[in-house]
């Protein structure tokens, strides 16, 4: 016989109280500590989960110091250790550098090589000529003759010889600009620092270059990816454990001159802004790799992005071309959720 479930009022009332209690718990002030700092010419958001406020403040201060130190060391146009290096590189003689700078240079070199030098931190001169080494790029674009003269010298990090803490350039056209990796590198340094301080759940977001460790309480970290064609959200993804996400977009920095738009991602092969791509999003375990790769893939474009991503060891990436079509690998396609209606046209690539 079917027995109708009986609810005693006592049980009901405890249910009510339990329900209300869970409701109120889930809404309770999360043990989330957030701090926003201005460093590296960027807004840096630090989110720490489950860290006591006092310890969190100290961690945030430590990271702020990291970011500021990296900012002042690597600034490409305000007097910094990097501008001093650039001044010496043209001499062709060996000179000593701050040993702290070597790891990033070695790292950048490896990534540059893997990307067929589409990510190329040696084209500082080109970037300077385009005015992208400046707070407010505004054109006009450089003389075509200047551009072709600069690219004909093929400056790359292959030309920079690192011996201990000494640098020497075999190519006088080499001028370093770590704009496409420095921010990601700083995020990595910050995360390493947090780990050393015992923080297990955190997110560092430097102007959209994001790395997470652990989780946001009982759920992963939720990331929205901005639509490169508008101001809304294109897609969302959940990150946890140790993952980075970086998007490079042609909409981030640009100037309009004589009715034409010139963006900041310069193709080192042509000397002109890369064509055909709106943005590239890369997931990787470290932010420096994701940062460099996203820039390289914008330059690579729809034709070569897959090959370059593989060469750089990238397993998850997405490229959005000028027509708004999303080119994406199957692994990322599976975990990303598109938020726009209608959903964008998607072209699935072979696995990376």
């Amino acid at each position, binding site marked *: 016989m079917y027995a109708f479930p009986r609810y005693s009022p006592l049980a009901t*009332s405890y249910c009510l109280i339990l329900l*209300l209690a869970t409701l109120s718990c889930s809404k309770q002030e999360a043990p989330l500590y957030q701090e926003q700092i201005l460093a590296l010419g960027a807004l840096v958001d630090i989110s720490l989960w489950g860290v006591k406020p006092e310890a969190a403040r100290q961690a945030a201060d430590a990271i702020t110091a990291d970011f500021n130190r990296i900012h002042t060391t690597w600034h490409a146009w305000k007097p910094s250790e990097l501008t001093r290096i650039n001044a010496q590189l043209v001499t062709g003689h060996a000179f000593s550098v701050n040993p702290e700078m070597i790891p990033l240079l070695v790292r950048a070199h490896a990534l540059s090589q893997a990307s067929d030098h589409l990510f190329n931190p040696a084209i500082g001169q080109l970037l300077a000529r385009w005015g992208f080494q400046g707070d407010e790029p505004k054109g006009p674009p450089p003389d075509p003759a200047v551009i072709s003269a600069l690219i004909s010298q093929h400056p790359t990090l292959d030309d920079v010889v690192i011996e201990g803490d000494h640098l020497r350039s075999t190519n006088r056209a080499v001028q370093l600009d770590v704009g496409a990796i420095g921010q990601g590198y700083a995020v990595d340094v910050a995360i390493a620092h947090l780990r050393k301080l015992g923080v297990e759940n955190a997110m560092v977001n430097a102007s959209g270059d994001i790395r997470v460790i652990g989780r946001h309480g009982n759920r992963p970290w939720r990331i929205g990816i901005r639509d490169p064609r508008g101001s809304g959200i294109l897609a969302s993804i959940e990150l946890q454990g140790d993952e980075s996400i970086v998007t490079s977009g042609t909409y981030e920095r640009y100037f309009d001159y004589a009715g034409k738009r010139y963006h900041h991602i310069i193709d080192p092969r042509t000397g002109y802004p890369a064509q055909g791509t709106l943005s590239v999003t890369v997931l990787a375990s470290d932010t420096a790799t994701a940062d460099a790769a996203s820039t390289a893939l914008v330059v690579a474009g729809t034709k070569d992005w897959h090959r370059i991503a593989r060469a750089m060891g990238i397993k998850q990436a997405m490229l959005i071309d000028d027509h708004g079509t999303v080119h994406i690998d199957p692994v990322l396609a599976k975990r990303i959720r598109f938020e726009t209606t209608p959903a964008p046209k998607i072209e699935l690539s072979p696995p990376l």
Partner: protein
Amino acid sequence: MPRKLTTTRDDHLIAWLTALAVTIHIAESALPSPLPGIKPGLANVVTIAVLIRYGWRMAAWVTLLRVLVSSLLLGSFLSPTFVLSLSGALCSALVLALTYIVAQRLPGAGLSALGYSVLAALAHMAGQFAVAYALFIPHPALLHLLPVLMSAAVIFGAVSGIIAQAMLTKAGA
């Protein structure tokens, strides 16, 4: 010599009506509730009928006795349910009494069973909620439930009111 306990006619009436309300209350508590905290509150029908027929004192007696007796029978006396139930009942009895007295003095302010019932249900829910908030879970998130709870109160209050109205029409004929 043992003193004889004298009872009035009103006492008997209260006892009978309370018994009826308790029966409804207990029967209803055996029903599954769609959402904790939301009950039809059909025992309210008796309260409203008594209010209109016999005045607010009688109604208050019936309401408070109903809560007390039901809790004793159900074994929830002094439990959180009882506290919530009692605070709701007190609040509703208070509002009914005040409205009733005002309605008596003020011509044109007369309420039918429908109006009383909706008022009683709202007062019951508000009182219960206030106590739940103050005693059990003083968290702002609870306030999110308030609109739903109050909506249910209005709906069930209206239903009870219509039933009470029907009962009175039949009985009063």
